[in-house]
């Protein structure tokens, strides 16, 4: 019984140390808090029941693509964000210094407002 308790407690202690070590080295560049900061100005302009399209400059197969989309949706509630640009309004989440203007034009997207921090509101001219 003592061995069982000791193993359990040692495992728990080991993992706790591991957790503290990992968390003390991590930087807050990705995650809910950073998305809340980036999108806070934009969110204040949104009314409930708004439906937005979504565009990102991440490569399609980038593993962070899905996570960033979900974080955008979480941040922009009560608006509904769809992973498509086939909506009248489209939010763009970009990471480069400036958005790719040619890419936006090719998708028939016109910038309505730049909220900074890599957040753009665009209008889809075809919708």
């Amino acid at each position, binding site marked *: *019984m003592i061995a069982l308790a000791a193993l359990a407690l040692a495992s728990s202690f080991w993992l706790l140390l591991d957790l503290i070590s990992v968390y003390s080295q991590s930087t807050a560049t990705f995650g809910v808090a950073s998305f809340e900061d980036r999108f806070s100005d934009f969110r204040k302009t949104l009314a*409930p029941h708004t439906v937005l399209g979504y565009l990102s400059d991440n490569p399609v197969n980038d593993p962070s693509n899905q996570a960033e989309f979900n974080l955008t949706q979480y941040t922009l509630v009560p608006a509904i964000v769809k992973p498509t640009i086939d909506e009248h309004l489209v939010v763009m989440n970009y990471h480069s210094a400036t958005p790719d203007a040619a890419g936006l034009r090719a998708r028939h997207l016109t910038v309505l407002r730049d909220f900074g921090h890599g957040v753009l509101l665009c209008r889809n001219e075809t919708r």
Partner: protein
Amino acid sequence: MTFFCIALVWLTGFGIARFLFPAPPRWSLHTVFLFSLATGVGIGIASCLYFLGLTVAGPSLLFLASLGIIVAAVALLNGMLAKNRGTALDWAPGPPTPAYLTGLLLLAIALAATMFVVHSIEKPHGEWDAWTIWNLKARFLFRGGEYWTDAFSSQMPNSHPDYPLLLPSIVAMCWTLARAESISVPIAVAFLFTLGTAGLLISSMGVLRGKTQAFVVGILLLATSSFVQLGAMQYADGPLSFYMLATLALLCLQDRFPSDLRFSIAAGLAAGFAPWTKNEGWLFLGAVLLARLIALLRFGDRSALGPQFVRLAVAGLPATALAAFFKLHFAPANDLVAQKSADLIAHIATFGRWVITAEGFVKMIFLVGGFLLPIALVLGLYWFLVRFHIEEHDRPSLVTLLLTLGLLLAGEFAAYVAFPPDIITQLNVSLERLYVQLWPVALLPFFLAANPPQLVSRPAHIDTKAKPVARPPKPKRRSPQPKPADPPVRLN
């Protein structure tokens, strides 16, 4: 204000739990049991009322506040005024508990609390599913105003709009009452469920097998880092684990105190909240009812079947009906179930899916829990040293527990084989969570059957149970209950 809302919910649960099982107002095992049960009862009832309020009156703060205060006041008043009656829960007789075991339990509690706090500080919004599903829905319910039903919009398939609403509802309710979207609410709810699960396991094991066994199982659960982390992730797996454990522990207590049918009422209440927490709750509800039926018919008192099932059904029906109402009226079809039947048949007919799933299920037995050594092997060694010792009166409980676990695992296995298009990803992201969810429930039958360890030398006059007993002749046909004169049967 946030703390006040959480306290109001918990006090509602405590009032109802104390009304069901009144106890003198002092610190005792009975009180620990009530404190633990209060979490699930309070949160379950509050979330149901919140959702009903939304559907009836919309997002009205006045209506919600009035309803909350009235329900809490009535529950507390009834709980406080309830006269001591029925069963008083106390430690079952067992070997003496050494002081160091208490110390180890306190250490396990401290480690678990530290781990929970560290995780919550680093990830206050929880992990992936918390902000993709559960807290996302809570935000829709709170921020959406008259468009609160957007939480179930089929335009957001990633958020699984058909998932039930116990967790989002309670979080949104506290935010609405506090008029602030504090992240401390989902953290506090997750903490209460984690603590409540441990408290419920320790207290019910204490009643069933004594203090030593209860402390051992408590240390093992609280030192299971993945159990504590699952709680801190703010997923609905933690609450579902609580409700499954509560249902089964209360049914075990029902078998221990057969004349007090309030245990069946409380078990029904807990079981009813399971489908309101997660879709797997429906599977659990079916599994536990079938297991209970078989256990009572085969090993229990058949005359208790009717009274117990009536109470289970009456207590469980409101929450189950609400979950069904949500499914039928608001939720879009589940993405996995809504697949074409030809695809499902193709999945089932693919032999490789069976092999992959079986491999995953077997491997996980050795990986679950985040222990330094595979816990299945350690528990195997523990069993070898202490052996099982099953009392006649524990048979219906053990059969209920083991059959429920077996049916749950079989159901989940079938779901893995039939539904997910990408079975490997599905197993990778969810199988460990499934095992951790079932971990408290799995500890219950193991330690209910295991002999309590002899940790200190004992006077000879109380040492009767652990001595080797000659195997009695195996009865050809099981005698009807109760049969207290029978010697206990060793299974090994």
